[in-house]
């Protein structure tokens, strides 16, 4: 590449970084601004004084502690549930021989033919019939199986050498012992990927919690944030303070587990 091209690329990259990061900085800056100071023209990126009091004020305007707890419960339960159901099903598909296996697997995959939005209304009707609206059961139950997770783990399990299983079988291990003590420990990277992806998906999910959680006590962070927006429409520092708080857990997770994020995305799109 030529020198000029190099310089152009660097310039563009810098510009892209700026475009990506600036809104976050703006969010943080506004979160630290006084309520009226925000309506200044031209807007100031750096507030005169750090109004840290915005944070406690915004987070108690609605019970955000409860929202965070709910989000954490939802995401954690779904992670545990998806790890369990995906790993067990994937093990059967990858390692056990039984009649109709491939047809059943295609049947599982065919669920991907149905966009999530199409399932929204009928799933709500079912959860409603079960009496689970406005409960953790309703929030969590529909998310406990991920066909994508099954697919991901199946692909991974197939890379584990069969001899390991044969050896364990001769050592006296049953299917469950092989699964628990040989296959699962060897699949930690894939399990971690699925866990991270599931956690982030649930933390970001909005529409399902919006329709299932009716009372304030059952709301998750995302919905709470949207409700705060409705209540404090003109108070941008409050909204930004809450937005910063809602984003921090995800960004921390991203920075810690970037590897798994990226692998999860790669595995969806590329072999």
């Amino acid at each position, binding site marked *: 590449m030529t020198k000029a091209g190099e310089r152009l690329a660097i310039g563009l990259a810098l510009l892209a970084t700026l475009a990506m990061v600036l809104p976050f900085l703006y969010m943080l800056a506004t979160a630290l601004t006084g309520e009226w100071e925000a309506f200044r023209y031209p807007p100031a990126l750096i507030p005169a004084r750090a109004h840290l009091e915005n944070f406690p004020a915004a987070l108690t305007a609605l019970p955000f502690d409860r929202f965070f707890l709910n989000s954490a419960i939802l995401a954690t339960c779904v992670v545990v549930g998806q790890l369990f159901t995906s790993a067990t099903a994937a093990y059967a598909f990858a390692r056990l021989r039984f009649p109709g296996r491939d047809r059943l697997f295609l049947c599982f995959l065919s669920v991907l033919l149905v966009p999530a939005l199409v399932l929204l209304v009928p799933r709500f009707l079912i959860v409603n019939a079960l009496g689970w609206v406005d409960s953790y059961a309703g929030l969590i139950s529909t998310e406990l199986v991920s066909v994508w997770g099954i697919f991901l783990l199946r692909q991974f399990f197939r890379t584990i050498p069969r001899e390991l299983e044969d050896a364990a079988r*001769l050592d006296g291990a049953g299917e469950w012992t092989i699964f628990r003590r040989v296959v699962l420990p060897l699949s930690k990277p894939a399990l971690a990927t699925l866990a991270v992806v599931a956690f982030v998906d649930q933390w970001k999910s909005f529409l399902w919690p919006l329709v299932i959680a009716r009372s304030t006590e059952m709301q998750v962070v995302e919905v709470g944030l949207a409700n705060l927006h409705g209540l404090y429409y003109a108070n941008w520092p409050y909204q930004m303070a809450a937005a910063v708080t809602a984003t921090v857990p995800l960004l921390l997770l991203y920075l810690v587990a970037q590897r798994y994020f990226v692998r999860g995305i790669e595995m969806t799109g590329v072999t």
Partner: protein
Amino acid sequence: MASVILRNLTKSFDGAARPALRELSLEVRDGEFLVLLGPSGCGKTTALRCIAGLDEATEGEIHIGERDVTRLPPAARDVAMVFQNYALYPHLTVRENIAFALEVRRVPRKEILRRVSEAAQRLGLAELLERRPAQLSGGQRQRVALGRAIVRAPQAFLFDEPLSNLEAPLRSELRSEILKLHRALGATMIYVTHDQVEAMTMGQRIALLYEGRLRQLGTPAEVYARPADVFVARFVGSPGMNVLHGRGRAVEEGGSVVECGSLTVPVPLEHYEGEIELGVRPEHVTLGATEKGVGNAEILIVEPHGAETLVHLDAGGQTLVARLPGLLELRVGDRVGVKLDKRHFHFFDASGARLA
């Protein structure tokens, strides 16, 4: 320790055109070291996996000791297996690998500790117990695999080409190690290999398999000296036996001659007429002047090995190999006279079966 008996064992895989094993009957005696030998795809590994229970026999029976284990799962058969690529659990230490089977079977903790250290002592693994398989060399890994097998004190040991992933010097070292174990434990061992050197040096008896069938069962000496058919004759020995295709013809003065290519070989058969396969090992072929011997042949290749020289010959379309002592000065393309030692002839009929 127990005997292992196979009766009419047949195994067909779903979708395969031919069965991998056909009516294999075999008795491995209690405490015997038996080698299953054959080229790749002959069914020897399938036979081993059927004995282990990893593959299910389509027909026939398998007995280990007094028990009919044909329909039992691997765990209930009480056999241990050593795999070609070791199959050590990568996430467990050497100690945990060896102890795994005992833990799964809920052996008391103290007992596990005792037996693991005993096995480690025996195999010289005491220093390596806390390492993981990735930190071990190939030879060490296979030693751990051996440890994992002996710690269980099973009814029988199964080896699936355990040395073929190792380099030559290590291989001979482990070979004697396994034989030492066999002597020390007095255990029944079934050893699968495609390497006839391993088979000849290790096996008390050799079972030769080809295309899913048992071709010959016998001691290494028997298999070498009296091959049951053309396949065995050609497969055993390096190089294998020369098998010349020819026609037998009775001669007036009594006996017969076999005409194959440019050779006319008088043979000690009474009035034999028709197609015949004449087998003679390379060490029983000697060369001389063109007018001597049973006919002429052209030298194709000369392979000097130091202590001996292998000479490949073309006798009118029939190729044969001579093993001659010492380093010889021979020119490719020269014609030489061929002499065959008639005391060491083997005769096979047209279908390949041994005559007499």
